[in-house]
């Protein structure tokens, strides 16, 4: 009896977690008339990949297909560059916090981590005005800089904890050979920290991919608008059929979804390492 109860609980958790995603797939792989049947069809029949072929492989700079491919590219570039910049900056900073002694260390560390408590409100309007005064509104660098400043504290926290868990003896050998701390970081610490760095990079990339309010404010047209901004606009216009909209949703969710499923272990480790203290 208890076995059944537990099985039902597990099934309920899985259905709750997966059903909306299944429903988007189901809708995206069928025709508009089938998707709009009442009561709803729970399997995609008749099956068609038409919505996806409408989005991918079309040429030209018009229409939903172009909006989709361009904003997909923008999101990839912006999140990718922000990930590189954030992780590179965080590696050096986290190493300094974990291994070096210097004045104001605690102040700088706590000051950095305290910004994790700041909600988006605190910086949204000034960041827009700063970026517009230096001419970086609607540019990749403007968006990448804003993303990186937002993601840095979490990246540093995860890497700091990771570095702190590495035994000092590993570097001692390098120091005896006359290595500087920077060499020790590059030759010893970074190679043994690949899982922690991978976890950080994945989390930062996913955060970048999901950004909405900052690019909504900072990008004014399709030259920099990421997928999230375009999806929201298409939903609001109510012109694009829901089958196509769900196909866009599936493709927008595909990259983070696949990363989350494939590299799940790193994410779980990262969340758990970053949060328990």
């Amino acid at each position, binding site marked *: 009896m208890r076995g059944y109860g537990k099985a039902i*609980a597990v099934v309920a*958790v*899985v259905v709750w*977690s997966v059903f*909306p*995603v299944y*429903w*988007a797939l189901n*809708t995206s792989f069928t025709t508009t008339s089938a998707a709009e049947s*009442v*009561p*709803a069809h729970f399997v995609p029949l008749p099956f068609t990949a038409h919505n996806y072929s409408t989005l991918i492989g079309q040429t030209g700079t018009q229409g939903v297909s172009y909006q989709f491919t361009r904003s997909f590219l923008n999101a990839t570039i912006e999140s990718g560059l922000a990930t590189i910049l954030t992780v590179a*900056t*965080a590696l*050096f*900073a986290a190493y*300094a916090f974990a291994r*070096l002694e*210097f004045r104001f260390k605690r102040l*700088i560390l706590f*000051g950095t981590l305290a*910004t994790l*408590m*700041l909600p*988006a*409100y*605190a*910086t*949204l*309007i000034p960041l827009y*005005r700063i970026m517009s005064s230096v001419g970086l509104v609607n540019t990749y660098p403007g968006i990448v*800089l804003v993303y990186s*400043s*937002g993601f*840095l504290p979490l990246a540093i926290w995860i890497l700091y904890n990771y570095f702190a868990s590495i035994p000092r003896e590993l570097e001692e050998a390098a*120091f*005896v050979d006359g290595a*500087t701390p920077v060499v020790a970081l590059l030759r010893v610490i970074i190679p043994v920290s690949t899982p922690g760095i991978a976890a950080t990079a994945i989390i930062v990339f996913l955060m970048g*991919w*999901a950004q*909405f309010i900052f690019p909504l*404010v900072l990008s004014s047209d399709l030259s920099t608008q990421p*997928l*999230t*901004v375009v*999806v*929201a606009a298409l*939903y609001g216009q109510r012109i694009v059929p*829901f089958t196509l*909209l769900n196909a866009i*949703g599936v493709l*927008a*969710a595909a990259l*983070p*979804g696949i990363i*989350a*499923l494939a590299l*799940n*272990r790193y994410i779980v480790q990262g969340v758990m390492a970053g*949060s328990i203290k």
Partner: protein
Amino acid sequence: MQRDHDASPRDGRAKRGRRGRWLPYILLSPLILFIGALSLYPTILTTVQSFYIVSPLNPPTRFAGLSNFRAVLSDPTIRQSWVNTALYIVIGVVLTTLLGLGMALVLQRRFRWRGAILALVVLPWALPAVVEAVIWGWIYDPTFGVLNSVLKSLGVITHYQVWVGIHRLLSIFFIELVQVWQIAPLAALLILAALQSIPDELYEAARVDGAGRWQQFRRITLPLVRPGLAIAMVQSLILSLNIFDQVYVLNGNAPNGASIMMQTYNVSFVNLNFGQGYALSLMATLATLVLSLLILAAVYRRVEF
């Protein structure tokens, strides 16, 4: 001089002298630049300029005392959005904590496929909130939505309903549910981490003493999982206080379900009244900090084994 350095217990490192002393600051300089220019300076700007009239439609920028605060506090639509946000928070924190605790308890024990199921559970957390809102918007659809279809075939409703957009409380509940779907996995992971740090011997000892399952849960699990619960609750509080993406997509510009973040966006970037936007931002930031500390103080207790 040389002797001073040699006396230092920090093995070879002190010998690097001058360059070594500056090294930490060199390594930290990009971070300090980033945080200083793009986090701290903007925060200070928000704080200071909330006392100024700042609007491209009404130049020049000039000191205004408390007038921005008075204006946003007396505006009826903004007032309603505070109440709405309070509702988002209550629904968000309660549902996220309960669901997170439930999922963590289900996933606590080892069983077949546990790893795979954990991966599926984390999935909603990894997807963009905007995309999730679009997907759920279709589920909620008043004419073709699967929610209506299922509830009608179960006999819960007799006609298809408009879930979001007409009835205020329903709108807020269903918009917040989309956020709960996204953030409950995070709560589950945080609580799971706390659960797994409880030593098995405690349960064994309790069983020897004749404690039942409910007693074990009340006397061991719940108190020891408090730090995890506290962090999960603060996380869901901050996220629901800041709810924007789901509201933007599902509620549009209707005042019905507008959150405080939505109104901040409207005031600043639709009405271009940055001064009032700053005032709202400052109040919401302070609310976030104060509420977070209150929850932490109430729920967090140091746990020692």
